């Protein structure tokens, strides 16, 4: 029983980690919080529903459609909400935050109009597959989620640390102006970052749809808020922090359900935020901030 819950917690935690990765990438490069990330994630989940349930097409296609749609959303987000604010004089650092809040509330209600307010099932025969080891039941979906999470994490780390584009991205994260002077096409890198972050969110959306079998327009908000909690917990802009923070949150949420306080499950994330901000504002893996970034 406990072991099963542990596996559930790990699954949940890996999904949280993937969502948090999207936040962390954008924050690392642009220094802003993308409040619309949760809604992009929700659109990814809905694409999964539309492809597998409404159109009865295979699951692999769901991933492709979700990736394409969320990439488009990321592109629009950058072009409409973020780029106009960049480099403008006299714009406060809160402007991108407010602007992405606008995008988030727009997308949520768009989904409301398209798909309705209710729960949408995500029925694939795949989600019923399970393996029995002793008394423990492991669903194939959980394994897939775990595998995809690890794969994403490894490939992202590899891409960031070993490839030329990754190097350029890190240069942008360090100092946008200097990177631009050294010949990095910062405009392109920023756009790439936002798109990659959105696509990661979209993949997480399909995974969540598979794991929990329910998709609603409101899920973007709750998942987005948890993603925020995780990047604060793990340290803003830290890829490792997002992974560890996600697992911590996933496990502690499952544990509180085991101990019977399921109603307060959603509060954990925020209590964690407030505590971590008081005790260690830079997060578990973050660098202490010496100067506020503009």
């Amino acid at each position, binding site marked *: 029983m406990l072991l099963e819950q542990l596996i559930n917690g790990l699954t949940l935690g890996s999904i949280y980690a993937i969502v948090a990765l999207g936040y962390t990438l954008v924050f690392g490069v642009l220094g802003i919080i993308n409040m619309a990330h949760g809604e992009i994630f929700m659109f990814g989940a809905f694409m999964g529903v539309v492809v597998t349930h409404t159109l009865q097409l295979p699951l692999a296609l769901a991933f492709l459609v979700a990736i394409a749609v969320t990439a488009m959303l990321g592109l629009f987000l950058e072009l409409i909400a973020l780029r106009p604010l960049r480099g403008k004089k006299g714009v406060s*650092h809160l402007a991108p935050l407010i602007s992405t809040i606008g995008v988030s*509330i*727009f997308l949520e209600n768009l989904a409301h109009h398209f798909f309705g307010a209710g729960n949408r099932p995500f029925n694939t025969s795949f989600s019923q597959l399970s393996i029995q080891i002793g008394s423990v039941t492991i669903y194939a979906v959980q394994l897939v989620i775990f595998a995809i999470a690890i794969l994403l994490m490894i490939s992202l780390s590899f891409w960031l640390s070993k490839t030329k584009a990754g190097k350029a991205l890190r240069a942008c994260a360090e100092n946008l102006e200097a990177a631009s002077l050294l010949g990095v096409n910062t405009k392109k890198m920023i756009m790439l970052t936002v798109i990659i972050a959105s696509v990661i969110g979209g993949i997480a959306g399909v995974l969540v749809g598979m794991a929990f079998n329910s998709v609603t327009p409101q899920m973007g908000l709750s998942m987005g808020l948890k993603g925020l909690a995780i990047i604060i917990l793990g340290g803003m802009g830290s890829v490792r922090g997002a992974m560890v923070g996600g697992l911590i949150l996933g496990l502690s949420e499952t544990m509180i359900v085991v101990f019977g306080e399921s109603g307060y499950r959603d509060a954990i994330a925020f209590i964690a935020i407030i505590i971590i901000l008081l005790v260690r504002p830079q997060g578990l893996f973050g660098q202490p901030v010496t100067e506020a970034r503009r």
Partner: protein
Amino acid sequence: MLAELINPYYLQVLSFILINIILGISIYITLSTGQLSLGHAGFMGIGAYTSAIVTINYDLPLIVGILLGAIVAGLTGILIGLPTLRLQGVYLAIATLGFGEVVRVLFINWEGMTQGAVGISSIPHIGRELVTGLRDTGFTADMIGIRSNQLISVLVFLILLVVTILLISFFVRQHRSRVGRAFAAIKMDESAAEAMGINITYYKVLAFAQGALVAGFAGALYAHITAYISPSDFSYHRAVEILIFAVFGGSEVIAGPIFGAIFLTSMPELLRDVSEYRYMIYGVILVAMMAFRPQGLIDYNMIHKLKRLRKKKDQKTIDEKESKRHDIGS
């Protein structure tokens, strides 16, 4: 005659506009030190629930309940403010967002007190209480020739109007005082303000607590006007709605959030077809305002220009009079 003029529905819309103006003011105060709070829906909820619970369970008079609601919200503001104001900008926004969600989860789960997700109904209504109070003194609605539900809405509207005007005049005066100057200095540049000898922590907590107090006050009024509250009234959407009053109208001068609240509350009422797409429009407004006019529609410059225009007009009339006098003289 009077009976046909008073439409309870319009008066209710006007009352909601007034409550939204108070909410707009609450976010304006917090923003006037450059802090973005997404927890105002939480403070509003605390005010509403406190007032509803004490008036129902302990039979306290309405006015005590409302004031208590505001005070509890304000104290929570200080409690939340003191630790989180070390944080800046984005961190503060997320922490307050987290606070708002915790409050909502608490309302849902603390069923013994808050009746959970169902919400609290049959909260004493300001207007109805007043009308029964008036009846005891021998005054009824028939005496001025209107129905009693009309009298209720008129009374609610008048009370809110007085309260709102008092609040506005208080904050206009505060804006011109030492405190207001300190707020503005902190908004401009925190380190410079600190170097000038302004106690930033004190003023930031003050602004935050004032915002929380006013939001709690608005929440308490809301509870006693709708007579029904539930946790979903104080969700993230409400926080964004409060924020948008200031973002749209303008956060530099107090006229901004007032205009924002009036316009954005009456818009869905005037254009019925639009109300369905309300939140989508809110989203577009937020993005567009940030891109084109981040300080909001009404800003210092506009107020300044209006004043100058008026001065010019006055000057003109004086000049005209002068020249006329000359004409007569020659």
